[in-house]
């Protein structure tokens, strides 16, 4: 990963392990927002949606 990924919420650098996969949820160390790995190539991070009451289906 050439460029260092930044948090879409607070712009701080986000340190991802080499084993990161798409759909993975990671926490931004600086603002502790939950981030979703939308794609790896190109690397795209997005704030994870707020979880709502989860009923199971």
């Amino acid at each position, binding site marked *: 990963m050439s460029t260092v990924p930044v948090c879409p919420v607070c712009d701080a650098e986000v340190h991802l392990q080499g*084993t990161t*996969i798409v*759909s*993975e*949820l990671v926490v931004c160390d600086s603002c502790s927002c939950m981030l*979703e790995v939308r794609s790896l190539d190109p690397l795209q991070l997005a704030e*994870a*949606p*707020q*979880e*709502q009451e*989860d*009923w*199971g*289906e």
Partner: protein
Amino acid sequence: MLILKIGGGAGINIEGIADDLAGAPEPAVIVHGANAWRDDLADRLGVAREVVTSVRGYDSVLATEATMDVMLMAYAGLRNKRIVETLQRRNVAAIGLTGLDGRLIRGKRNPGIQVRQGEKILLRRDLSGKPQGINVPLLKLLMENGYTPVLTVPICDEQGFAISADNDDITAALHRELRASMVVSLLEAPGFLSDPADPGSVIASMSRADVKQWEERSTGRIKRKLHAINGIMEEHPTRVILADGRTAHPLADARAGRGTVIA
């Protein structure tokens, strides 16, 4: 105006329901399931159901493209049109539609389920959602011209994609905007059972407070059903009847209060 929810089990007596509607016609919107037909079709086609367990321990069947195709065939195709046929055979002017048609039922895509995989947590998105709004003008246009809408999933998400939704949530969303004088839900049970294993444990009537207590004490599907009924009762209280959809005259029985009456 009546909202009539017809369960998706194979034991439901659709002919008896149609006889009752034809016998005592009233403006009505029908919502129906078809889970028995879906499961049979998925088995015959070998379409696997992927169940994921959320980090909070709830199991969900993921709504994928493949399961959506099965849903379209079983709900919108087979069951919807056979119900319309049964009604048309008795001169009830039924018109079968999904929530996608004319954006009748608009919904919001679920944000995804957080699932543990090894020490990672993944967000599993799928094609399911919650109903948010009803195209009331279209429904009224049809009903004022004598038609009985027969509705089923899928519903329509913000971008016009077909997504699945829970029929109890759909029933509540319809009532929120149509303000039905009565909501009848026909099940494969004699009504609400205090002990799900004992068909004799039908609760004949429940107040709004009772429903709240039962929701807290229940789990899974029943909890979800009671949650939707609570939503109905909180916003626009009406007469809600849970009755047996397998009898000779399920709707007549429900109209006569045989089952669980919530008012």
